[in-house]
């Protein structure tokens, strides 16, 4: 848990607002869901990782076990299956809010984390059209953060699922660990113990990542069964349709077919977004056709969530300036009226009962003080200049946000 001071809060909120605008322009309607709800209900819609990370407590009023949402997708799934059950699809929804998780690499370092997320869910639109659309929205969302270095990394769960379903039970954990690390030597060693049909697939799965076209070509050259071939072909189609749908310039797309994270949750195309300056994915999503059915209305669905904090870190690392409106303190005769008209010029204006000091301007995050009686502008560095005391000339002088 942490506090956000004004500048940090401004960055996160302006990012969340930009993301929300992108989602809305793509036709996604905003919903708000509760921060906690009955644990049994919430957990039905969580993947294994999110379930383990959920913070539960007994609600003293009712004695009921409730859980803070570790994920908003489960709540959207519940809504779609219940309140929106009679709605004609496809349904396009978006959300923004905090999720809460236990996190920490060691059990004894476990702490609670609050993560600000913004995301979309597209329900009742099957592959490949639905996947291509949410990918295009994801690309637009990443682009709205104005970062130089971003990537969309796309995969499909089919190759991994096929391999995990067919290796002997005893080798499964070891294989999953080796894949998580992309440990080539270990994967080759495991492959050596497997049937000739499976061995080349296991040996290569940890290396099937990189630029989209060559990676898919390498994957296609392996002896996959028809169902995996179909999935790889679907991935190719999704990439093509994404190219048509996405706003140029779309971020560079890479492919990773060996990503094991959250594979128990996704049922088809899955993807992640990365940004220079953030040490892990800032966006994760994919198709989850079996999730909404857990709440009683089977539906095809896909979506993604953005870690707003991760994106804010990337912006800071890239020295991305904060988009805050200009602000001034107004002091002297007629200050209320002048402040009022400055506000109508989209300038933040504080009326001061006492003469503001330069150092206070800095602390308050204001760009200048308008000293009406002296006809002067005082800057946070202590410098002053003589200016005309009209809202228009002040607005011009201060510039936009």
């Amino acid at each position: 848990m942490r506090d956000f001071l004004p500048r940090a809060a401004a960055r996160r909120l302006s990012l969340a607002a930009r993301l929300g605008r992108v989602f809305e322009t793509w036709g996604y309607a905003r919903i708000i869901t509760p921060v906690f709800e009955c644990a049994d209900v919430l957990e039905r819609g969580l993947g294994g990782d999110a379930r383990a990370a959920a913070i539960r407590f007994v609600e003293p009023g009712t004695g009921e076990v409730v859980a803070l949402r570790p994920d908003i997708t489960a709540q959207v799934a519940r809504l779609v299956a219940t309140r929106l059950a009679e709605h004609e699809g496809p349904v396009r929804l978006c959300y923004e809010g905090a999720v809460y998780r236990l996190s920490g690499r060691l059990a004894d370092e476990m702490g609670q984390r609050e993560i600000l997320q913004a995301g979309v869910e597209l329900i009742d639109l099957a592959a490949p059209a639905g996947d291509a659309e949410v990918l295009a929205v994801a690309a637009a969302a990443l682009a709205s953060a104005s970062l130089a270095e971003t990537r969309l990394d796309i995969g499909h769960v089919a190759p991994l699922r096929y391999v995990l379903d067919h290796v002997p039970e005893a080798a499964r954990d070891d294989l999953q660990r080796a894949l998580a690390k992309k440990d080539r030597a270990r994967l080759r060693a495991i492959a050596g113990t497997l049937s000739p049909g499976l061995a080349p697939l296991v040996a290569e799965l940890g290396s099937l990542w990189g630029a989209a076209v060559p990676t898919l070509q390498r994957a296609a050259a392996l002896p996959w069964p028809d169902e995996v071939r179909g999935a790889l072909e679907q991935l190719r189609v999704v990439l093509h349709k994404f190219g048509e749908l996405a706003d140029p310039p779309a971020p560079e797309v890479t492919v990773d077919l060996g990503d094991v994270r959250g594979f128990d949750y996704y049922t088809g195309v899955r993807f992640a977004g990365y940004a220079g300056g953030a040490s892990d994915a800032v966006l994760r999503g994919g198709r989850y056709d079996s999730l909404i059915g857990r709440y009683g209305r089977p539906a095809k669905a896909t979506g993604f969530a953005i870690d707003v904090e991760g994106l804010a870190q990337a912006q800071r690392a890239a020295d991305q300036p904060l988009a805050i409106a200009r602000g001034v303190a107004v002091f002297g005769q007629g200050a209320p009226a002048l402040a009022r008209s400055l506000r109508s010029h989209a300038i933040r204006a504080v009326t001061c009962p006492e003469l503001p000091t330069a150092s206070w301007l800095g602390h308050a995050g204001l760009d200048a003080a308008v000293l009406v009686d002296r006809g002067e502008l005082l800057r946070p560095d202590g410098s002053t200049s003589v200016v005309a005391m009209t809202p228009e000339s002040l607005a011009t002088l201060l510039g936009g946000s």
Partner: protein
Amino acid sequence: MSAASPPLVTAARPLVLALPKGRILDEALEVFARAGLDLSSIKNNGRKLVHDCGALRVLVLRSSDVPVYVAHGAADLGIAGSDVLDEEGLDLYEPLDLGIGQCRMIVAERADAPIDDRSQIHLRIATKYPRTTRAYLARKGITAEVIALSGAIELGPLTGLSDRIVDITQTGETLKQNGLVEIDTVGQVSSRLVVGRAALKLRGAEVGDLIHRLEAAVAAAPAA
């Protein structure tokens, strides 16, 4: 909304590589040399901590800090012992076993005072690797007290601090000199190439190229 966004700057920055100081460093530099990457200037630069070597910027760190730098993205990739990686337990890619820094993680006790299982004492084990040791004990179904130390582990049984130790050993010479004898192997240790989660995706082409070159260099290594 992109109209108000500042222009994009695409600065090709060097890949940041974290190397552990100490005995692994020389072996690591040899592997890089065989891969066609001359990092020898690191050795001649005294106390400098950051070295610019063409396409690579090299940080020389304490070995246990290497995975931390990579996990937080302060380095794109690094070289770290599997002992350190298992202990830190960070979520990193480990695409390559470099076959250097080979040793074993073992359990040892005093040669002159072996612990008889029938003595039914509650074992105390001193180690620099508490997490790995707990995992080993859990695998074996043994409950024991793990005492975390940061060096001179061999002193534990000699001073009565602990009954046994879990530590790494190459030749067993230090153990022998301190009157200790190995009773079990926890695992094999060697140095790995580790890559950060974002680095593998954002710098995939360069990282992939480096992995292939290092893999060839490892395959061409003279037999130890």
